[in-house]
């Protein structure tokens, strides 16, 4: 087992028997605000980018103690297999480089210096204007328990825009955020001094009230009811960035359904299903196959099953609690009975485990999967049919994995955009958005900041 000593630096480091009280929390929040004024304020964006890029690079290095510890202790703490976790970390941190961070800043602000001083883009210069952007003094992140990456991304965003940050982890979901926070502290203790984390069960109103009173921006991920409950409790002037749960699907047009391309797409689709064991909003629940290609939906389902089987050998799914596994086996049994009796449904499943399941059926519309590598394949006439029959999840779709010819793709994206989809990407990349991704179709950093325009 890796030896890693954590200094008692964050509230989340307190022993479980120590109870966090509102007074302690308030003082901690005020302290990180003071630290921000003292330390972060004076740092240039370039310096911040360098620190983050170096840290991300370290997280890709097998000898980096925090990564080592994550890989050794993560599987039992987070429920993912070692291989899934390793791949997830590589993909997440691999895309964070100085270049990509600068790209992100440029995309969001037109000029990556705008957080440091007034600067201008050509259009502004024509009008003799400049502008600068200022991040919130304190951001409170209310994070969801399903996946660690969105939480880490929020923390990186907060660092980039120079805010003090408090991360409220869902109960039992603080493992990786905590390690990441300590790695930030080690990389740059002044950054660490502007960061605080704690873990508590949702609904601890007396603690949340402190956070809501001190923070001027709250981000939250969760179910719609949770989000609207939070919104109601926030002071009028507090900026609220909410992300409801989203689901995703794949679509493959008939021109891509030649034997060779279909098989390749099935392998890529298996990557998307396996990534983080399908737990993220970006994970596909259904793959729609346009009919009348050389390879049909049922054959594609078979190919996807083969690919998931192969995947299981190299990148096994994590162990599940009995209740979750029972849920999968119960759903399988529903489909198995239908397969045996109605004949218009086929089921492929891992033997002697619930590791993966593919269902090919003739149901219409969208079905939410029970996750953990359980996926539906359906044949459709065209994308119109998908959108018509998936009306129930309209505006709740995050990502569409798309395989279509270049000629068709632009029209399909146009159609998807108008229907409410906020991200389209190649199949195989669904769980791996670029750093510049606009989460839920909103600016990645632009959403946090306040602008000051200067007319000279």
């Amino acid at each position, binding site marked *: 087992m890796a030896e890693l000593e954590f200094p008692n630096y964050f509230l989340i480091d307190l022993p479980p028997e120590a109870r966090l009280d509102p007074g302690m929390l308030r003082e901690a929040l005020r302290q990180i605000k003071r630290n921000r004024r003292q330390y972060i304020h004076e740092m240039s964006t370039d310096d911040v980018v360098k620190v983050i890029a170096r840290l991300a690079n370290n997280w890709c290095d097998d000898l980096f103690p925090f990564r080592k510890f994550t890989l050794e202790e993560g599987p039992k703490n987070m*429920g993912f297999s070692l291989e899934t976790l390793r791949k997830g970390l590589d993909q997440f941190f691999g895309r964070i480089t100085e270049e990509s961070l600068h790209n992100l800043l440029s995309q969001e602000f037109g000029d990556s210096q705008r957080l440091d001083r007034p600067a201008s883009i050509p259009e502004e210069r024509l009008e003799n204007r400049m502008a600068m952007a200022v991040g919130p003094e304190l951001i409170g992140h209310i994070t*969801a*328990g*399903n*996946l660690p990456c969105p939480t880490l991304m929020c923390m990186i965003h907060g660092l980039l825009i120079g805010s003090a940050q408090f991360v409220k982890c869902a109960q039992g979901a603080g493992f990786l955020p905590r390690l990441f926070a300590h790695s930030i502290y080690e990389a740059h203790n002044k950054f660490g001094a502007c960061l605080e984390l704690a873990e508590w069960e949702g609904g601890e109103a007396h603690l949340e009230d402190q956070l809501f009173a001190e923070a001027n921006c709250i981000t939250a991920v969760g*179910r719609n009811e949770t989000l609207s409950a939070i919104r109601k409790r926030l002071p009028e002037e507090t900026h609220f960035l909410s992300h409801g*749960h*989203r*689901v995703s699907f794949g679509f493959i047009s008939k021109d891509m359904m030649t034997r060779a391309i279909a098989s390749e797409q099935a392998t890529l689709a298996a990557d998307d299903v396996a990534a983080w*064991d*399908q*737990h*993220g*909003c970006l*994970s596909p629940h259904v793959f729609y196959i346009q009919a009348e290609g050389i390879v049909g939906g049922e054959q594609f389902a078979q190919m996807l099953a083969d690919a998931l089987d192969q995947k299981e050998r190299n990148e096994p799914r994590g162990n*599940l609690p*009995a*209740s*979750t*596994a*029972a*849920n*999968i*086996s*119960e759903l399988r*049994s*529903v489909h*198995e*009975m*239908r*397969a*045996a*009796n109605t004949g218009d449904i086929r089921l492929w499943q891992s033997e*002697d*485990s*619930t590791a993966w399941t593919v269902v090919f059926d003739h149901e219409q519309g969208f079905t*939410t*999967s*029970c*996750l*953990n590598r359980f996926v539906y394949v359906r044949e459709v006439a065209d994308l119109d049919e998908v959108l018509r029959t998936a009306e*129930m*999840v309209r505006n*709740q779709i995050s990502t569409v994995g798309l395989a279509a010819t270049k000629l068709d793709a632009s029209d399909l994206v146009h159609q998807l955009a108008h229907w409410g989809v906020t991200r389209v990407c190649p199949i195989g990349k669904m769980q791996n958005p670029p750093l510049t991704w606009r989460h839920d179709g909103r600016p990645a950093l632009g959403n946090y900041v306040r602008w000051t325009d200067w007319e000279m």
Partner: protein
Amino acid sequence: MDTHFRNIIARIFEYIRGEGGSFDGLAKELFALQYERVEPYRRLCDLRHITPKDSRTIPAIPTNAFQEFEITSLPPDDRPNVFHSSGTTSSEPSRHYHNAESLALYEESLSHWFNQHLQPKQRMLALTPPPIQAPHSSLAYMLQSVQFSEPCFTGKAKNDAWIVDIDETLQFLRENRTPITLAGTAFSFVHLCDGIEPLKLPSGSSVMETGGYKGRSRELSKTQLHALITSKLGVPPENIVCEYGMCELSSQAYDTRAGQGGTRRFRFPHWARTRIVSPEDGSEVPLGATGVLEVIDLANVRSVLAVRSCDLAVRHEDGFELLGRTPLTESRGCSLNLA
């Protein structure tokens, strides 16, 4: 007439009464008969390439199959009784069909095991509606059948929901000063206890509670519910017996005998065997581990004897501990709660 079934029903009767026969032999024979006569079950076995001739195990049919398919060997014109699963979900209920012969076996099965855990000679006060108001409730049917004398039913069926008539219940209790057996669902006990001032049932009275809450009352843990029953009705914990049953089965499990006390463990009778299986590979879990409860119930003669429940249970040497239903939605992942 169906001599095959008649013949095996007669031998299962004997087996229940301890008059001979072997569990494995009867189970194998019944499996063969059901494979032949229950079409959706045969198709499931065929899909799994299992036939009674060469199989050592009897495939369990999931309880949800009773919702979508007619899991019965009875022809449509010979199904005078049908029991439905309760529940408040919008999905179809499970349906378990019976005729006169299968009902007779059902009654034999439930009385035999009930008699060993509660007191059939006591007058029963049932918090469920009477069978005439709840004709598809296997629980109401059971309570009607197990006692020597006619029970007093104080539950009412109102638009599919069950409520307890508190006034009628109190009136019965005022008029009846001998020990009674008070039976009902967990939520009906909450309704009753929330609606009355503390009182004391005659000493020696017992309680049989069963089933979950299904959103029909505030939900309490088993310990809290029993404490509430003790404080409101004056029945000591050792006289509270939990029953586990479902419409898809014809036998029940009890977790203690009235008055016995000690560790509670659910046990089915000798004609119904349980397996707690791993949801991953279907193998029996080791002692102390959690798995899905499967029951092979010889009294399930006209449906399918091997049933896989939706309940998680912990396997113990002397029975099982019920953890309850497997959740139907995934909570850890990013998923939508679609209505």
